[in-house]
């Protein structure tokens, strides 16, 4: 009797364990199925980008601005293949515009070399490629000479590029060499007042010559705190089969980036600077004031900015931690003697409050003046940054 009872207990336990093991195995299989559903394949898509909106008050106008956003599409085809594309959706002159900022494909050839083809941001200095997104640019406006309509040097172009980065002992280097359509020369045939200007949005090449350029960056210290860069680009810029077809242009830029934690100040100091210049061969253009005659001028243009910020990120007060103080000085000097020539200078200051690491509200004041503006630059004021003082409040959002 006792023996039978013992056998019944053993069989019962065996059955319970069997069923529970079977249940556990089913649970594991079920979880594995769920995990498999969630695991992405080798092809991965990511939507990132940024947006901004705000209010701007200039001496002659004030308005809410922005309402624009820039979606960035990242498509990772494999560990080596990446597509990146950015659109800019904005309100301009009462309508919605959609612009293609860049769209290119990259292939990682090896640890030190990446090839890229398409429309890409040009590493001519650091502003266009690294600092222009609204949530990265610490001031609401771009420096003089680095904005659409009055830029000295390219921002984006169509072409092919080889780039990469490598350690060099405790230091580092990075490099880029590219071939692009290059800038085009406005010869004044359509608008004599713009003769001699370089246009960088040259998406259907105006000649058979291609621009060659590149940037070399050197980070001398192990902390990567300092980066020094030099950029250059060379091209023939005149329209094919015109007297300007052999007119060439040389573009140069120097840049600096310094980001350093200062323990005694309990904060981070960030200094950025860039100097850009363009030189165009001498050429004679139709005089806009005397259409029967021609004139020439020394076609050299320059722009530079120095920007400094301080963020007390390591103080105890959580409100002050999120503040940032920014200041910038920039100068734009366009060819003296040209109908569009002239000079502008700008001081800009901003008090920023970071809602999180990629969302910032900027309260800014800037003052822009133009020495000798009565003669030239002020006439084209509407094409670039308005003169005088301005208050700008922007909310920038990275995602």
């Amino acid at each position, binding site marked *: 009797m006792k023996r039978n009872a013992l056998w019944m207990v053993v069989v019962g336990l065996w059955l319970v364990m069997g069923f529970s093991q079977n249940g556990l195995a089913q649970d594991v299989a079920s979880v594995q199925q769920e995990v498999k559903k969630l695991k992405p394949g080798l092809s991965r898509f990511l939507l990132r980008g940024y947006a901004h909106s705000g209010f701007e008050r200039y001496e002659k106008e004030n308005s809410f601005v922005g309402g624009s956003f820039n979606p960035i599409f990242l498509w990772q085809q494999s560990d080596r293949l990446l597509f990146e594309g950015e659109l800019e959706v904005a309100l301009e002159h009462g309508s919605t515009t959609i612009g293609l900022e860049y769209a290119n494909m990259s292939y990682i050839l090896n640890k030190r070399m990446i090839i890229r083809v398409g429309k890409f941001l040009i590493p001519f200095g650091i502003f266009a490629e690294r600092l222009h997104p609204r949530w990265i640019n610490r001031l609401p406006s771009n420096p003089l000479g680095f904005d659409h309509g009055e830029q000295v040097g390219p921002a984006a172009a169509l072409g092919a590029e080889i780039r990469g980065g490598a350690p060099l002992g405790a230091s580092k280097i990075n490099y880029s060499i590219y071939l692009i359509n290059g800038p085009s020369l406005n010869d004044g045939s359509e608008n004599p007042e713009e003769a001699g200007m370089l246009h960088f949005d040259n998406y259907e090449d105006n000649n058979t010559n291609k621009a060659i350029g590149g940037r070399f960056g050197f980070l001398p210290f192990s902390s990567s705190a300092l980066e020094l860069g030099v950029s250059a680009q060379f091209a023939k810029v005149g329209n094919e089969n015109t007297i300007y077809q052999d007119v060439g242009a040389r573009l140069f830029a120097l840049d600096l980036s310094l980001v350093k934690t200062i323990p005694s100040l309990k904060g981070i100091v960030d200094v950025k600077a860039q100097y850009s210049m363009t030189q165009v061969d001498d050429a004679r253009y139709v005089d806009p004031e005397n259409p029967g005659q021609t004139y020439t001028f020394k076609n050299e243009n320059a722009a530079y900015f120095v920007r400094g910020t301080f963020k007390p990120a390591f103080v105890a007060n959580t409100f002050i931690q999120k503040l940032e103080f920014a200041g910038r000085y920039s100068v734009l000097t366009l060819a003296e003697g040209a109908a569009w020539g002239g000079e502008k200078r700008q001081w800009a200051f901003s008090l920023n409050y970071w809602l999180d*690491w990629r969302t910032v509200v900027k309260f800014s004041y800037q003052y822009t003046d133009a020495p000798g503006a009565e003669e030239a630059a002020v006439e084209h004021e509407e094409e670039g940054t308005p003169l005088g003082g301005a208050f700008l409040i922007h909310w920038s959002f990275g995602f």
Partner: protein
Amino acid sequence: MNKHKLLGGLLILVVVLVTVWVIGCASNKTLVTEKSGAQLWGENCVRCHNAPSPPAFNDYQWETIAIHMRVRASLTDEEVQKIVEFLKMAN
């Protein structure tokens, strides 16, 4: 024109010399291979923008972002590997 070119050049030269001097005094010679992912994350991301919060993206998203930053910011292969490992561990 020439006056401002000279002024701009001098301004940048002064900034360069001062910063090289200041950082040179305080810098050590640690190789990238000897640094942790957390240290590289703190040093490199802030060169352009605030250091990203690890929980902002999942592991797979960080891998895609890492390739993007390798292309865009010319980070080295060694840096990217270590930074991604750190972000995946910390998110």
